[in-house]
Each structure stands twice: as C-alpha cells, then as structure tokens.
C-alpha cells in the first residue's frame, strides 16, 4: 500500500495545526497503525509538548546537522503504542532557514521512513520551505479558524501554494520567463488567475494546458477549527467553494472541530487532549476527519504528480 504523507499547515499561527496533527496521530495509533509525527515547524516547534513529552535528543536538528545519519533514527518512540515522533529542535537557532540541499534530503528521507503514515506539522507562513513540505504531502490539510484574520491568511497561503506549484512546473519545463509575467498579473485581483491562464492559453496552449493540469492536481483539504456554532461550520464549506471559483483549485472540506475549553486545560496539564477527552465533540470530529482522509478513495486513486524541485 502507498505511504500516506499528510501535512497540516495554514497561513496563520494559533489556528490549531499542531493540535490537529497530534490528535490525528494519536487516533491513527489507537487503531493499531504505525504513525510517525514530524514536527516540521522549524521556527517554533512544540508538537512534543502537545503529546506530553519532554524535548530530548535525537531530534530534527540532529538529523539536519548530521548528528544522526537518517530521519528514521531521529524518529523516537512515544509512550503511545505505534506512535513515533521526530521532535523539533529547540537548541539550534535559525534552523528554519534550511538550505536547498538540506530540504531535499529531508523530503527524500520523509518518503523513506519505514511507516505507512507520516503526519507533518508545519509552521506558520508562506516561506518556500513550508510550501514545499505542504506540496510534497498527499493531501495537505489547511487549518483555519472562523475569524477574518485566519480566512485572509488562508487565502494568502493557498495563493502562495498555487504560485509555488506553477513556479516548479515552469522551472521544470524551462519557461521561467513566464514566472515574472505571472507575478505581475496575479497580484491584481481575484479573477487574475483566470486572466493569466486565459492569456496563456491564447498565446501558448501547450504550456497553458500543462500548468492548468498542474494547478488542478493541487487538491488541498480544509479543516475549520474552534467553531462555536453552525454558522462557523458552514463557513468552511463556503471557503472551499470560494477557493474553487476564484482560485481554480479543487479544495475538499473535511469538517469542523468545535471549540473546547478542555483543550487549554489538557495543554496546561501536559496531557494529550485526544486521549483525555475521547468522547468530546472535538475528538469525534477528529475521528471523522481522519476517516475522511484515510478512506477517501478519491485521494488514493488520484495522487498528484511528483513535483520536481528546481536545481539551484
């Protein structure tokens, strides 16, 4: 069976990316699956804290500085059966500025991990490293909250992903001159992506088709976290619809995770919320979401094409 790499990302901090990643990992492990959680939030790692584990070595920093030979050895056991974690490094500063070769090595080793399920917890923002990790997953999950700031950043994150996908394909097909044109054009308004493709199709249909297919193969999922009422739940569906119409991407809405005060309490007690409150509405939502992700035939059949990173 294929290896499943899920990346949990998003544009804004504090939306609950690490919470969703930790809960998904714990849920899959409770189903007797082997899971490796990777804290790829290079700037501010804290996934281990959500699982109630103290920072220790080896961690991702040890792998990136060649203290351990492979990522497999940096994946340490947790108190939870079937679940391993590659902890983020808190000791090595400026590790977030990964160079190209280290990034490629990490991406390659992620695919070589001896486990069926890999969950990447990504950092905030739209740096190239974060975007490349997000795009390497199948599928990438965007976590948003029902607030204007989070929605705004979600669209920005999706736009950045789109630009990155198109840039990678342009580099691969040696049509870099289109890139500047795209940058100039796409920033204009919401319909500009359509405008760019339209003019590209008119001028050079073959490249237009390639890039459009690349765009359609980018199929992220959306999770609306910390929802308080039905309106918030419906907002997720609306965001997916707007992304489909204006950003031309096929976005799937996985569902909403209701707001729960106990998350805060669990975090203070350094205990994983998912195991402490298995019957809560939030835990139920996580289970449903994981099933959507795991058993969706659509996603296993229609895997996106391998993205080749540009050589520097």
């Amino acid at each position: 069976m294929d290896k499943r790499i899920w990346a949990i990302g998003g544009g804004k901090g504090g939306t609950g990316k690490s919470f969703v990643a930790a809960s998904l990992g714990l849920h899959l492990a409770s189903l007797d699956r082997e899971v490796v959680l990777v804290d790829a939030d290079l700037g501010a790692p804290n996934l281990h804290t959500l699982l109630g584990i103290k920072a220790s070595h080896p961690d991702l920093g040890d792998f990136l500085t060649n203290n351990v030979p492979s990522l497999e050895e940096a994946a340490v056991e947790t108190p939870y059966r079937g679940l391993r974690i590659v902890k983020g490094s808190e000791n090595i500063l400026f590790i977030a500025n990964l160079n190209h070769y280290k990034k490629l090595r990490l991406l390659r080793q992620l695919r070589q991990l001896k486990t069926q399920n890999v969950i990447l917890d990504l950092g905030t923002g739209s740096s190239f490293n974060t975007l490349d990790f997000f795009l390497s997953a199948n599928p990438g999950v965007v976590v948003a909250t029902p607030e204007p700031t989070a929605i705004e950043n979600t669209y920005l994150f999706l736009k950045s992903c789109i630009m990155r996908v198109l840039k990678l394909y342009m580099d691969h097909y040696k049509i870099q001159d289109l890139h500047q044109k795209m940058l100039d054009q796409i920033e204009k308004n919401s319909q500009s992506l359509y405008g760019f493709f339209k003019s590209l199709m008119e001028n050079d249909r073959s490249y237009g088709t390639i890039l459009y297919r690349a765009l359609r193969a980018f199929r992220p999922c959306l999770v609306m976290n910390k929802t308080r009422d039905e309106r918030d739940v419906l907002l997720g569906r609306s965001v997916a619809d707007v992304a489909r119409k204006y950003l031309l991407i096929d976005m799937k809405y996985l569902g909403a995770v209701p707001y729960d005060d106990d998350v805060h309490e669990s975090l203070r007690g350094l205990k994983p919320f998912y195991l402490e409150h298995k019957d809560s509405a939030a835990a139920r939502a996580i289970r449903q979401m994981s099933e959507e992700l795991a058993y969706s035939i659509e996603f296993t059949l229609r895997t996106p094409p391998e993205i080749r990173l540009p050589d520097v």
Partner: protein
Amino acid sequence: MLKRIEDWNYYELLSVERTASQDEIWAAYQAALTTYRDGSLAVYGLVTEAERGLILERIQEAFQTLRDAKKRKDYDLALLRHAAYFPPKAPFRKSVGKVEIEDIPPKNTLWARLRRIFFRNP
C-alpha cells in the same frame, strides 16, 4: 474547464449536479447565499464588493431558473445543444456522439413499423 465566473452555468454556480432535485437546489441556493451575503467572512480578503454583487445576482438568476420546471427544462435543452452532458455517476458511457442514448424512446416511423411487421428481429 477554464471558465470565468460569468461563464459558469447555473449548475456549476450552485455546485449541484444537473440531476439535482428541487430540495438539493434549494439547499445549494441557501448555501450560496450564505457564502456571498453582505459581510460574509468567506469572501474576506479575496473577492471585491463589486464581484460579490455580481455573483450574487447570477446566483439569484440561477435559482429563479432552476426552481421553475419549465424554465429549467428549456435551460437544460439549451445547455445540451451547446455540449453533451453525461451524468458523472453513470457506470459507463454508451455512446460519445449521442446524448443520453438510453433515454431516447424507439422511433416509431413508418419504416420502423414495417420492419417490425416483416422482420421478426429488426
């Protein structure tokens, strides 16, 4: 399927199948109204006020057409004339050239009737 929002047909606009029932259309219409209503969070930071107004107008137009059986039939026929439509859940496609061949009743022309009289297995 690279289209401007103005060129999306009513079904695409409401994100429903062409075989959608009246209840499904009603639900999709309500969802679309929620998405594009004034002050909606879903369009925050991406869609301008003018664009929002435009799409809302199109959604109203789509609902007014699809809720009325006669108008919907005329619209469907117009769409079919433009391009053949195959329901996405169909197990296989019988023909590429003809539209929904299984729905077309057998022709009752004079030749067909004569053929039935003279040949046992036409």
